[in-house]
């Protein structure tokens, strides 16, 4: 029974981890930018959900409708106005720039929202589902469902739309994409905008489950990083597999070696993967 509960927990959490990581993976894969502001954007999304619920009682899943375009615009403008200026520079330069942006955003959040941990508690509570001894809170189930929907939407966008194909094309062969008439800089801005939109939406969903504080941003960033390494870079399925793998390791680790070591375990796994299988579970060498 414990095993079933651990598995269900891992499945629920894994989908949310995938949602955290997928925007990070997209930006890394397409722009070759390690986007250190990703964690803070997630936290900002969580504050948006928390604030709107506290003030006017809007349920978080409705907030997604606002968060997606808002964060897309933030990401698009960041790329257009700042990152595109240095995009051809070595990866350390873009890394430093996103590090600086993260410092600004994170400290601004500490200034405006304080560092206190806050919790979005739905009143009345939605309760939980119990099935054969396995218990899952309903709000978690809803958050997971939306995480899967967002992941699926990104997959469809990349596969089926003209602009999505162009994003993938730029990732696969920059020069060939230029030959097709693709304006690479605007594709970069769209990809970064999508990454930010997914971060914001993930944050909105996280607000249902985890405490909210600017201090949690590095934990989100760390998880995104581990998921990308586990699953492999730049594919939607890779992020999903990586998310589930991370959640499973953490869940099993919490039972076997204790909750306080679960995170340590996941980072140990990260190191092992970087040494043994740097392309990740689903990542391919060379392309994709």
């Amino acid at each position, binding site marked *: 029974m414990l095993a079933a509960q651990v598995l269900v927990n891992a499945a629920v959490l894994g989908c949310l981890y995938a949602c955290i990581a997928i925007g990070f993976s997209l930006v890394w894969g397409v722009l070759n930018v390690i986007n250190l502001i990703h964690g803070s954007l997630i936290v900002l999304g969580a504050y948006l959900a928390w604030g709107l619920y506290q003030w006017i009682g809007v349920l978080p899943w409705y907030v997604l409708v606002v968060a997606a375009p808002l964060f897309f615009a933030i990401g698009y403008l960041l790329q257009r106005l700042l990152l595109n200026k240095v995009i051809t520079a070595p990866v350390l330069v873009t890394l430093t720039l996103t590090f600086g942006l993260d410092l600004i955003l994170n400290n601004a959040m500490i200034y405006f929202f304080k560092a206190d941990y806050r919790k979005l508690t739905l009143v009345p509570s939605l309760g939980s589902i119990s099935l054969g001894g396995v218990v899952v809170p309903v709000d978690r189930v809803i958050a997971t469902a939306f995480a899967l929907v967002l992941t699926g939407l990104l997959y469809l966008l990349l596969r089926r739309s003209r602009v999505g*194909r162009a994003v993938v094309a730029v990732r*696969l*062969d920059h020069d060939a994409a*230029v*030959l*097709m*008439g693709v304006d690479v800089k605007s594709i970069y801005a769209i990809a970064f905008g999508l990454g930010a939109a997914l971060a914001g939406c993930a944050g909105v969903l996280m607000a249902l489950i985890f405490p909210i504080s600017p201090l949690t941003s590095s934990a989100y960033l760390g998880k995104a990083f581990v998921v990308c390494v586990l699953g492999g870079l730049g594919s939607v399925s890779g992020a999903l597999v990586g998310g589930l793998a991370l959640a499973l390791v953490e869940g099993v680790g919490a039972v076997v070696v204790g909750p306080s070591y679960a995170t340590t375990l996941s980072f140990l796994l990260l190191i092992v993967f970087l040494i043994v299988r740097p392309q990740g579970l689903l990542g391919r060498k060379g392309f994709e």
Partner: protein
Amino acid sequence: MADTLVAEIRDLRAGYGEIQVLWGIDLAVRTGEITALIGSNGAGKTTLMRALSGLIPMECALYRSDGVDLAGATAAQVIARGIVHVPEGRRLFGAMSVEDNLLMGAYSRDIGRTELKRDLDRVYATFPKLRERRGQAAATLSGGEQQMCAIGRGLMAAPQLLMIDELSLGLSPLLVEQLVAALRVLNGQGMSILLVEQDVTVALELCHSAYVMDMGRIVRTGPGRELLADPIIRDAYLGVPAD
């Protein structure tokens, strides 16, 4: 139709950073013809293609297509004008399906679903093998099929001028023959083609007129058959002494 130019360049200079590769190229590609560009390795043929398609910066006295000035145009502007470059080594999007590669070819055009479908069908009619493999990742195609896919992707941009760099590279003679036949059909339908080709015999037999490049300059020009019979060309590029 007679003697209109689908591409005309005068005194084109280009290179990579400090290194100048092209030293004043004059070229005229006549509408409805196949024009070949031959020359040894490092003569600057690929660089010329890259300059014409807007991939690298260049200077020129004139770059015009059917009266439209293209000097200093970006790659997107060049392709919008109908000058389409099928690059050396195919450069397909390997992880994407064949059909998605073809759809990427039409990226620069603002057309609806029905038109896209019609153009896809047209490419599939030219290269039936591609229809069979439409759902397959482009990287899994054979070399010949990849070249078909690359040309098909170029056709999806609705070119006025199709520039093909190294048609035969790495392909068996039989496949080259098939591709040459396909190009003849396309040309018969009115497509202008600028062909860069290592295999000088193939190029000169196929083309209406040809340019010979050496050290970043045009050193000879004339009808394909005339050059094919030229003892100097035979000696330098065909490895057969004049008989």
